[in-house]
C-alpha cells in the first residue's frame, strides 16, 4: 500500500469512528456517558505504532470530534487531549505489545488522562458545564465504559492498524 493510500484509509477510519460514536453509541449511553470510540482508536494506534504516530492520529481524530456537530465547545480541546493520550500511551507501551490485561490497563489510563485533560481545559477556559464535581462524576464512568467496550473494539482496530503498517521496515 502506498503512503497516500494509507493516509486516506486512516482518515476514513477516523471519520467513521467519530460518526458511530456520535450517532449510534449515544443510544447506548449510560446517563449520558458514551464509549469513547475515538479514544480507543488512538490507544490502538499507540499500541501498534508508538507515540508519534498515535499523537498524529489523536490530533486528527480530536479535531474531527471538536468540529463535527453537535460539538459546541471551543475547538482544539479534544485534539489536545487525544494528542496527549496517544503520546503517553505510546511511550508507556515500551518495546513489546502489551498483554490483554495490559491493554485494559492502558485503556483505563488513557480514558482517565483524556477525559481529565478535556475537563481541565474546560475549567481553564471557563466552560460553564465543567465543574470539578461534574468531572469527578464523569471521568470514572467514562473509564469504566471504555474498559467495557475494549474487548469488542480494540482487537479489531489493532488488527486494522497492523495491516496498515508498512512491512518493508527492515
Amino acid at each position, binding site marked *: 500500500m502506498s503512503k497516500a493510500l494509507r493516509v486516506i484509509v486512516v482518515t476514513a477510519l477516523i471519520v467513521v469512528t467519530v*460518526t458511530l460514536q456520535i*450517532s449510534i453509541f449515544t443510544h447506548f449511553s449510560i*446517563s*449520558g*456517558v458514551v464509549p469513547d470510540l475515538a479514544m480507543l482508536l488512538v490507544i490502538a494506534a499507540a499500541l501498534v505504532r508508538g*507515540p508519534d504516530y498515535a*499523537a498524529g492520529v489523536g490530533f486528527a481524530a480530536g479535531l474531527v470530534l471538536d468540529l463535527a456537530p*453537535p460539538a459546541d465547545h471551543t475547538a482544539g480541546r479534544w485534539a489536545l487531549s487525544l494528542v496527549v493520550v496517544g503520546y503517553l500511551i505510546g511511550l508507556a507501551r515500551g518495546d513489546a505489545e502489551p498483554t490483554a490485561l495490559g491493554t485494559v490497563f492502558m485503556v483505563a489510563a488513557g480514558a482517565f488522562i483524556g477525559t481529565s485533560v478535556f475537563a481541565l481545559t474546560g475549567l481553564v477556559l471557563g466552560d460553564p458545564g465543567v465543574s470539578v464535581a461534574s468531572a469527578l462524576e464523569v471521568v470514572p464512568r467514562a473509564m469504566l465504559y471504555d474498559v467495557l467496550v475494549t474487548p469488542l473494539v480494540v482487537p479489531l482496530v489493532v488488527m486494522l492498524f497492523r495491516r496498515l503498517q508498512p512491512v518493508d521496515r527492515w
Partner: protein
Amino acid sequence: MVGLLVLASLTVLTLDARREDDGSPLDSLRTGVGSVLGPAQDGATSALRPLTDIPKHFEQVAELRDRNQALQAANDQLTQQLRVAGANAHRDAELGGVDRLANTEDLDVVKAEVVGMGAAQSFSRTVSIDVGTRDGVAPDLTVINADGLVGRVVESSATTSTVLLIIDPGSTVGGRLGESMELGFIDGDGDLSAAGRLELSLVDHTVSPREGDVVVTWGSRGGAPYVAGIPVGSVESVHSSPAELTQIAEVRPFVDFSSLDVVAVVTGSADRRTDDLAGGAAW
C-alpha cells in the same frame, strides 16, 4: 512531532476561544465539517435504527407498565373528581394546555429528527438535528417538541443544525411563572436523566413561586432566541438563597431530554410577523 501537535491544538484553541466576541475563524470550518458529517450521522442513525431501538424496547416495556399503572391511578382520580364536580386543582394544568394549543397554532415550524447527541464527556448538552439552512433553519431559533421547550439552534450547516438544550449548564432562558406572570431566568443543571432539573431565579425576590406552577418562556424581541409562551416545566420545590436574597425554584422540565426524537424548529410566529409589519418597533 508531539510538541508540534500540542502547539497546533493550542493554536486552534486560542483561535476558537475568542468566538464569543467576534465570530471564530473556525466557524466556516465547523459548518463545512457539519455539512459532510451531518448527512453521515443521519444515514448511520436511520440504517442502524432497528439496532439502537433494542435498549429502548426494554426500557419501554417497563415504562409502559409504569405508565399503565399511573394512567389507571389518574383515571380513578379523575372519575372521582368528576363525581364531586370540583376540578379546581386541575384548572391550572388545563389552562396551560389551552394556552399551548393556541400557541402551537400560531407557530410556523420545521419538523426535525435528532440524529446525534453530545457525550457527557464533552460536558455540554447539545444534539444535532437533520434540518439546516436549506430548510430555513438558522442560529437562535427556538426548538420545541410535543412536551415543551427543548432548546435553541446554535449552529447550522446546509442540512444539519446543532441545538443547545435548555438543560445545558451554559443555557439561560427568560421564563415567566404561568400564574403570577412574574419574570425570571431559567438555568440548566446539565443532568440529562429524569433527575435533571432547571433552576428558576425570579427577578422580583418578594414573590415566591408555588409548587406546581407552570413556567413558560417569556420571549424576546422578534421571537429570537426564544418565542414567548412555550411551556418549559413545572415548579417542584422552592428554596431561598441567603446570599442573593432571591428565591430559587427547582423546575422539572416537561421534556425528557434523554429520549429526544422528533422535534420542531420554530421558524416564525404570530409575534414575529406582527413585529415585521410594525417594522420591529412594536415595543
